[in-house]
């Protein structure tokens, strides 16, 4: 027991990381109808670890200790409850006999089996009876170990609303006969798009979300990336579209370090210090993008990753190949149109063809009324007005954006832009 030998990296979010792995594994053993018991068992195991380590210090391989503790607690619960409850139906006999109980658990708590359980849980959380919001919340709660309060704060959402969503989602999950079987290729492929979508939304919540806590948002991005790499480790999960999803996450996450100035202010893509971008993540992203370029299906993830790679390749905002970006957004509008995609396309057109064209495209966006609570539509109009010299109009637009800013970081950013209209700078 020497805490000095445990590196800070190894400890980084260790409990959260292991909690997801253990809840998935214990649920695999107990059966999904016993999800609540599985959660209790894992929580109990983690509280014990916490109490012992607080006083004795953290052991050399804390992750292995957490797994062993969770396994022993699960074993206790199985022995205590096996006459009163049915556990995972497909494991029934093995769990009932003392001869096979311990060896079965040893196998199910082996690293490969834990990853398998994670995937089963990931696919189970993306149940077709659940809405996308509920799927994302459930993934965060069960697989990433976020409490209701932590999810509510990350999504800037009421505690009661999140609690209700999760309670309902768990009921749906616990009502399914068993965890999703990831070994049946046809079922796997049918559910895969929903899983990819949930991971994409989780990443986006971190990347573009409303939370004012930048650290929290970075964590959401990291969680999404971690789960995506679990998906990539599975033979059927490593499809071109999953590679594209992983590529877009790496390429966008690479820019995270440039988005906040040292004083905690938001930097737009145009004035970020690009030397802060994470070169190794960019290299990972490009390699993943290459791996995604097989087969004949072009997904929105491919296109978004390609857009991110064009940004990553540009040394300055002026050097960016905006014509290429416009054409990629055209493709994206054809595959998966949305007001946000249209907004980004219009901004790219303004960069490629001048502010007048940008304004034209912005005002032509259909469904634009959905932007009334989204500050960056008015802000985009304002930037182009400012660029064509209409300071007063630009200022009005920035003020309109400021009125719907969602957090202090956005507010400071927009105030600074309002100031730029007044000062005569850009």
């Amino acid at each position: 027991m020497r805490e000095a030998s445990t590196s800070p990296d190894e400890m980084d979010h260790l409990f959260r990381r292991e909690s997801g792995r253990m809840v998935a594994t214990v649920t695999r053993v107990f059966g999904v109808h016993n999800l609540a018991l599985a959660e209790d068992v894992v929580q109990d195991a983690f509280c014990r670890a916490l109490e012992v380590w607080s006083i004795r210090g953290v052991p050399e391989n804390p992750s292995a200790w957490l797994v062993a503790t969770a396994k022993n607690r699960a074993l206790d619960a199985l022995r205590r409850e096996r006459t009163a409850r049915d556990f995972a139906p497909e494991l029934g006999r093995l769990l009932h006999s003392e001869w096979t109980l311990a060896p079965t658990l040893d196998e199910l708590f082996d690293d490969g089996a834990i990853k398998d359980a994670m995937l089963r849980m990931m696919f189970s959380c993306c149940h077709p009876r659940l809405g996308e919001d509920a799927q994302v919340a459930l993934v965060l709660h069960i697989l990433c170990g976020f409490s209701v309060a932590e999810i509510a704060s990350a999504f800037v959402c009421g505690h009661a609303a999140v609690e209700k969503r999760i309670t309902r989602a768990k009921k749906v999950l616990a009502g399914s006969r068993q965890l999703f079987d990831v070994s049946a290729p046809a079922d796997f492929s049918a559910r895969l798009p929903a899983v990819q979508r949930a991971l994409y939304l989780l990443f986006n919540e971190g990347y573009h979300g409303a939370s004012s806590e930048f650290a929290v948002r970075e964590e959401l991005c990291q969680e999404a990336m971690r789960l995506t790499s679990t998906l990539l480790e599975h033979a059927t999960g490593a499809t071109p579209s999953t590679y594209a999803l992983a590529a877009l996450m790496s390429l966008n996450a690479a820019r995270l370090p440039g988005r906040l100035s040292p004083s905690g202010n938001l930097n737009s893509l145009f004035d970020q210090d690009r030397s802060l971008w994470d070169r190794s993540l960019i290299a990972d992203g490009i390699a993943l993008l290459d791996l995604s370029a097989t087969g004949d299906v072009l997904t929105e993830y491919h296109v978004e990753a390609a857009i991110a790679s064009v940004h990553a390749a540009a040394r300055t905002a002026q050097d960016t190949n905006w014509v290429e970006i416009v054409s990629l957004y055209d493709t994206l509008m054809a595959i998966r149109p949305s007001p946000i995609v249209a907004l980004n396309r219009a901004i790219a057109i303004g960069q490629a063809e001048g502010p007048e064209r940008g304004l034209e495209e912005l005002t032509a966006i259909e469904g634009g009324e959905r932007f009334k609570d989204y500050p960056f539509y008015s802000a985009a109009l304002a930037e182009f007005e400012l660029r064509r010299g209409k300071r007063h109009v630009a200022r009005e637009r920035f003020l309109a954006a400021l009125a719907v800013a969602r957090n202090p970081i956005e507010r400071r950013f927009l105030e600074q832009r309002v100031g730029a209209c007044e000062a005569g700078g850009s």
Partner: protein
Amino acid sequence: MSEFVFLYRGGNRPTSPEEGQQVMQKWMAWFKDLAAKGHVVDRGQPLERGGKLVQAGTKAVTDGPFAEAKDVIGGYTLVKAADISEAAELAKGCPVLDRGGQVEVRPVMKLGV
């Protein structure tokens, strides 16, 4: 220098894994600081919540004690300090206090002083 026992009582359980980890990291930081200043004699041990009670006379063995959660001793540490007020001062940094718990500071009794 005299020796003192810190008895950790109560303290709410964390509500999420992340919070649990933060609590543990606070304990580690606190111990690190105590040890660096030479106050730790023995880090001590955490204790299970329940055990047995052996009664006088009949020597009957029963389950227990069933103290209220806030009074349950969760563990102990042996420290040394100049006097009881310094020991109490050291205990003020204990993370159990952040979670509604208490630290009981008890001097180890000495003979012949």
